[in-house]
């Protein structure tokens, strides 16, 4: 799905008043940092995310897993208030620390983004401003959201670059994005996202474009920073082994709907939805390689406009029967799991 995104972080804030007068209520420690209730996102004619409900607690990482076009990126963008016409929020509630974000105007949202919630995208080179030194881009968030002077903010930026594992941060702060590798650029994005210690960090395929050794470093860094700051994290990926590395809980999406949720251990040990089972069966891991034919899921993901009624996985499912023509409301399943299937469990 190609959506043009409005600029985030950095230069996008240049026109905003320097110190935000918008504040959100102090954290109720028991309440989730983010909760999404019954969210539907789409255009006037077609729904792209249907009735999604999620919650993430402080210090917790929720992985959103699914194939291209399943709505995982749109769920993130809707959370951040970054949906662009013609896609919009059609129903539901998104609340950050108990404050409803859905009715807020763009100006208010702009104050929250980068300060209380931040997002990291797949392609760091495209997210950074190519004609501005990276230190200044990190510092800008502090100037805009915390009213810091440029001098103080630049000093903080160097500290942040150091914290995300960039060698010789003083010198690197003066570099332009094209002078840094992909992994380094992603570290800069993380430094920028964490500059104002957000309560929620949304990461959309943030390690997908990186080499395996760089990916391992970035995952380790994000986990370490989360342990330190207690940030709640939504981590979008299509890679189940990244999920195994970083998730506390998992939500599996298929064709716009969340079909299964649960703790990472429960979902890996006994996936309940046939689609989750299919994903688990066709993954390839170099250390536990399967020989012979793979258990591929037949068919293809339906386009949103031609999504079957009821359970959208129905045409690809070997368990499909008459009840599947009606959408199976998510129900509890062994332990921590919920599953949206009439015939959950091992097939």
């Amino acid at each position: 799905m190609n959506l043009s995104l409005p600029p985030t972080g950095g230069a996008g804030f240049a026109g905003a008043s320097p110190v935000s007068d918008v504040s959100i209520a102090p954290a109720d420690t028991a309440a989730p940092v983010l909760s999404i209730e019954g969210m539907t996102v789409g255009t006037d004619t077609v729904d792209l995310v249907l009735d999604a409900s999620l919650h993430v607690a402080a210090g917790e990482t929720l992985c959103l897993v699914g194939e291209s076009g399943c709505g995982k990126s749109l769920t993130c963008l809707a959370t951040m208030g970054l949906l662009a016409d013609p896609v919009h929020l059609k129903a539901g509630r998104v609340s950050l620390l108990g404050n409803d974000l859905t009715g807020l105007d763009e100006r208010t949202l702009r104050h929250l983004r980068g300060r209380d919630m931040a997002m990291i995208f797949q392609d760091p080179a495209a997210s950074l401003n190519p004609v501005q030194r990276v230190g200044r881009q990190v510092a800008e968030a502090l100037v805009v959201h915390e009213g810091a002077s440029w001098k103080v903010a630049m000093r903080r930026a160097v500290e942040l670059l150091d914290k995300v594992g960039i060698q010789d941060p003083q010198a690197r702060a003066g570099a332009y994005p094209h002078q840094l590798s992909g992994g380094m650029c992603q570290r800069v994005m993380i430094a920028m996202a964490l500059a104002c210690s957000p309560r929620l960090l949304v990461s959309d395929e943030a390690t997908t474009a990186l080499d395996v050794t760089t990916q391992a470093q970035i995952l380790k860094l994000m986990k370490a920073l989360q342990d330190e700051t207690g940030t709640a994290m939504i981590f979008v990926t299509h890679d189940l082994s990244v999920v195994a590395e970083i998730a506390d809980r998992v939500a599996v999406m298929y064709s716009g709907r969340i079909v299964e949720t649960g703790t990472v251990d429960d979902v890996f040990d006994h996936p309940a939805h046939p689609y989750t089972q299919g994903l688990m069966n066709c993954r390839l891991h170099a250390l536990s390689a399967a020989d012979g034919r793979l258990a591929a899921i037949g068919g293809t993901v339906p386009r949103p406009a031609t999504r079957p009624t009821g359970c959208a996985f129905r045409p690809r499912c070997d368990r499909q029967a008459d009840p599947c023509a009606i959408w199976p409301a998510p129900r509890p399943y062994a332990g921590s799991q919920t599953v949206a299937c009439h015939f959950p469990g091992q097939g």
Partner: protein
Amino acid sequence: MGDPMLALHAVSRRYGGKHVWLRRGEPVSAVKNVTLTLCPGETLGIVGESGSGKSTLGRIAAGIEAPSAGRVTFDGEPYAAIDTAAWRRQRRTVQVVFQNPSQALDPRLAIAAQIHGAMAAHRIGAVENGDDRTQTLLARVGLAGLGSRFPHQLSGGQLQRAVIARALALSPRLIVCDEAVSALDVSVQAQILNLLQDLQAEFGVAYLFISHDLGVVRHISHRIAVMQRGRIVETGPASEIFARPEDPYTQSLIAALPAASPAMRRAREAAAQAA
């Protein structure tokens, strides 16, 4: 597996250097002194990180790029000079499947016409045993009845099937797959890997399979070569490379692999703690 079909002898490829106007600095060596062989019906996997030279190596093996030094032979004969008539004839035996199928296909032509076009270019008859060869090929890759579709009407997995059908139309003996399944969703990736393996069993085609994904390479390859900064640092049977990696770089790649399950992650973390 008998005599090698494709052989690269001490192949190197440099970019840039003294002949290019205003280009400063040293020439860049993308591939350095690589020697490898590939037998008929065999799959050789090439793994490495971005910039390791694996795509350049693939292009040299496919004959669409000439090495700066070294020799490439196919059935003992060197590749003809690029852009000659002999070279064009040789291309029939070696085909390439790239990462992005939508860029490999002409957006203005229906896929059946593109497959037919490939055969016409090599003067291969469109009819075989009374059947339309294009339709037979489309059915073989799982696209029966979709020949009249244009690329924008097909999904990524279907497009890659069309590209594979077009490559197969020339009955090649070697297909260089450069990140051929990397852009596909996991469930579709599994379908394409199964298809590639079935086609190998049926037609005896050999694959030079280039990927950054060690899981995919291990699954499909008989042998694996690990590349780092233009050199091959280790080669061996697929299972050996993962069970007993000898080169420090291979070891670091394997150590960086994310865990297959949360249980494996905890086992690794416990082992790291104990060490």
